[in-house]
């Protein structure tokens, strides 16, 4: 189907010029959703009526000669950890199963201002805590490339929706790899911007100092387009950077000749699947042929990234999730005996096992007598990890690494072994701790026909370079739209 070979950039132009209507595109997407959802579970909530109404109004605005915006008429999927006014927002949790917020996340306001059409809210691990989408209170999303495999997570629903053409572009959120790892597993592009590049206002918090919203799309150019819409200052988020947003598309095709790329040795050690390693090295060769120069580097504190992350992220999460107490909104247990009982029952019944595990871990780490040994020490290690990057970026412009040690693994194979599951984020977590941007872009497929992405990491606010690098690779490998075996 020709429509689905077009990404957001192409369709936006076609809609703007009247070659195709937003209604037609939206209808096609909704039809795909109807066909595929029974075995993909990309969405927790779909909003077909709202979407069609909105698409029609965008078409009318176009006919009236109004500017319909950079994403005018483009059907988009929004991760369900992002607040949408009037549309149920669950964060994949029972405790928010019926929560309909009265306000929009900043990024939603931005998307709507740019003319986007929201078609639904995508599946996620509960409160984004997971690497497979399996901790979702709802049915886990399945990988469109092989429905027996996980999508990755936590933004697995958005990745799956893209791979199955159940949307044209999507938003995800990334705390330790939650955009990049599912992007790799599902063969799409996803970028975690610099911490503070995109406002977190309206992103349901997991770990405030690590969370960042980012685009997930079918092509690199689409990610650049979406990021240029959602990035920028927002006075409702004190951690948001007040820096101008470049037009990421203007320089995307300017080549990568002379760019110095580091290969950190710690990312190519034991535990890396050989096929993933081969695909990554093939990407290195492609980049070389495009003119990039490779330098071996070291990020010596990499081995501490996972423990550091699981102390800091869970500590913040333990506080961030205290508001779900059954008092003002969300799930409340029936017939509690007293206030204390209401708290205990509402939270015990409302949260799933992974969320409870992380709340316990974080609470422990902040407790009197343990704070110095865990939280404070982890903050120190976080600084060391950041310094590793600062040092590396004195000699290189970007860093290339695998996204995840393996391709998408079978559903159910790691969910009962949290430590194994936590390792799936080993190559993505450091970047969140350092607050730096990283992009995951398709690099090839395994012998089992499973997509594998590679990751480019960059300096603070150097998303522009990441797009150039990812685009150079994409030109050689092809996008999720065109490469062989793409799911249409």
């Amino acid at each position, binding site marked *: 189907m020709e429509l689905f070979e077009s990404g957001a950039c192409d369709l936006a132009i076609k809609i703007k010029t009247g070659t195709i209507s937003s209604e037609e595109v939206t209808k096609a997407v909704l039809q795909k959703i109807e066909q595929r959802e029974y075995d993909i579970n990309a969405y927790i909530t779909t909003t077909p009526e709202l979407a069609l109404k909105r698409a029609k109004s965008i078409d009318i605005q176009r006919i009236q000669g109004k500017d319909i915006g950079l994403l005018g008429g483009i059907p988009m999927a929004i991760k369900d950890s*992002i*607040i949408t006014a009037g549309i149920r*927002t669950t*964060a994949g949790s029972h405790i*928010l199963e019926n*929560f309909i*917020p*009265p*306000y929009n*996340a900043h990024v939603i306001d931005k998307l709507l201002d740019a003319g986007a059409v929201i078609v639904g809210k995508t599946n996620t691990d509960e409160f984004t805590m997971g690497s497979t989408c399996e901790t979702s209170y709802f049915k886990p999303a399945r990988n469109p490339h092989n429905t027996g495999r996980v999508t990755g997570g936590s933004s697995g629903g958005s990745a799956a929706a893209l791979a199955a053409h159940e949307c044209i572009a999507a938003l995800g959120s990334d705390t330790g790899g939650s955009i990049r790892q599912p992007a790799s597993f599902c063969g799409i592009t996803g970028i975690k911007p610099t911490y503070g590049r995109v406002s*977190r*206002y*309206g*992103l*349901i*918090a997991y*770990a*405030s*100092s690590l969370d960042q919203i980012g685009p997930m799309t079918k092509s690199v150019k689409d990610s650049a387009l979406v990021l240029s819409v959602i990035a920028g200052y927002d*006075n*409702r*988020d*004190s*951690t948001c950077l007040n820096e101008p947003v470049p037009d990421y598309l203007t320089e995307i095709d300017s080549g990568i000749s002379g760019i110095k790329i580091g290969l950190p040795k710690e990312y190519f050690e034991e535990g890396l699947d050989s096929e993933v390693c081969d695909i990554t090295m093939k990407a290195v060769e492609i980049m070389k042929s495009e003119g990039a120069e490779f330098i071996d580097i070291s990020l010596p504190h990499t081995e501490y990234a996972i423990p550091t992350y699981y102390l800091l992220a869970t*500590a*913040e999460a*333990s*506080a961030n*999730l*205290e*508001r*779900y*107490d059954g*008092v*003002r*909104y969300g799930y409340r247990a029936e017939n509690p005996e007293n*206030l*204390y009982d209401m*708290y205990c029952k509402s939270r015990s019944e409302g949260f799933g096992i992974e969320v409870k595990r992380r709340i316990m871990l974080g*609470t422990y780490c*902040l*407790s*009197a007598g343990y*704070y110095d040994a865990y*939280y404070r020490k982890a903050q120190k290690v976080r600084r060391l990890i950041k310094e590793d990057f600062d040092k590396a970026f004195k000699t290189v412009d970007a860093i290339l690494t695998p996204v995840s040690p393996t391709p998408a693994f079978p559903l159910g194979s790691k969910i009962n072994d949290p430590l194994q599951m936590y390792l799936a984020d080993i190559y993505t977590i450091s970047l969140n701790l350092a607050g730096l941007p990283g992009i995951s872009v398709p690099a090839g497929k395994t012998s089992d026909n499973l997509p594998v992405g590679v990751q480019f990491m960059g300096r603070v606010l150097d998303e522009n370079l990441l797009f150039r690098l990812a685009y150079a690779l994409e030109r050689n490998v092809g996008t999720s739209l065109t490469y062989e075996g793409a799911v249409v």
Partner: protein
Amino acid sequence: MKYIPTVGLEIHSQLATKTKIFCGCPTAFGGESNTHGCPVCLGMPGVLPVLNKHAVELAMRMALLTNGEIQKRSYFARKNYFYPDLPKGYQISMFEFPLIKGGYIDLKTENGPKRIRFNRIHMEEDAGKLIHVEGDIESYFDVNRCGVPLIETVTEPDFGTLEQVSLFLNQLKELLIFSGASLGNMEQGNIRVDANISIRPQGQKELNTRTEIKNMNSFVNALAAIEHEIARQTDIVEQGKKVIQETLLYDPVHGIIAPMRSKEEAHDYRYFPEPDLVPVFVDDEWIDRIRSELPEMRNEKRNRFIQEHGLPEYDAEILTTSPDIAKYYELVIGEGADPKKASNWVMGEVLRILNETRITIDEFKVKPSMLAELLIMIDNGSISGSMAKTVFDEMASNGRHPKIIVAEKGLTQISDKGELKKVIREVIESNPNEVEKYKSGKTNLIAFFVGQVMKMTRGKANPQEVNVILREMLS
């Protein structure tokens, strides 16, 4: 044996900002329940706090007035505990890195000067309110107070007497109010006091186990509670028992001190830096600006009133009990009223009505310019002093201008000599006996004639004029 008490205080004061500390909701007192709320102060998912700069500035004023050290960099922290009046499940407060360290207030006690040192002043948000209705098994939540900005002033355990506590609280309140940092309204919960108390035998240096009394909402209660607690601890020690460390509540109605339920007190607050906020950076330029903006404090104001307006010390003292009254007074004289007469009226009539009707000067219907107008009318003789009081009462009840009231009621004073002579002549003619007596030396009968004139003019005759003309015509 004689025991010496040692007391330290923690005072929560509401900062006088228009909006809350982390969102744009109003802080105004007395709104209908749950009308001052938004997703941020309700702790909805995904929302973020944004610091109100003005709150920081008001806290800085207190530091400058108490010689505290404003930190170049301070951090907010999350204080975690579950309670239904705390929407996020944590209170945003400050812990390891408060905004202000140190500082002190010097007291003039009966036994000489006494310095009370501060440990710190930090900023935090207030919690909401729970409403318990008698006989109802459910409780209700009101968000209006959630996120109202507070500063917590923590003193060292420097108090040895109740007199010191009392002087300190009043002095602190004066600083809060005159600096504009707080409205200092106790009834509206603007100032709340916690006290740490221990006693030790005379001669012993090290402090004994202390208890903490929480949440006292008036100075009278705080003093009574501290006195009670000192007595209670003395009793325990004299019985040979030991004071145990616990948190207590004072019940002012029954005058009892009782421990808080253990569940409410056994908290591990798990403080950690608030990741949703950036550090508060303060540079010298900012401090200098706040210093230059400091309002006139009470002492300066009192002295200025004596010197500039020629007021007696007593008047200056009363007119500066609150910055609002002082401001009102100065506006009245700014409109041309005589300073001393204005002072008499403000201290007398204005304060009387404010007390009687329990309103603030802002709500008072007689605006400064209107009072000035009235005083000028008395001065130029267009109404009498006694009439003015009637007019004033009416102004206070309906907010109308004195000239309009006087005109409508026909209260304008008769000062016209020709008109007055006509009336006086009539009075003299119809009271020949009294005229006789007056002329034979009973000069105090003048009051009788004045009274007759007033009766005939229904009080409108200018008494001074009447006096002069009567004496002329009777002699």
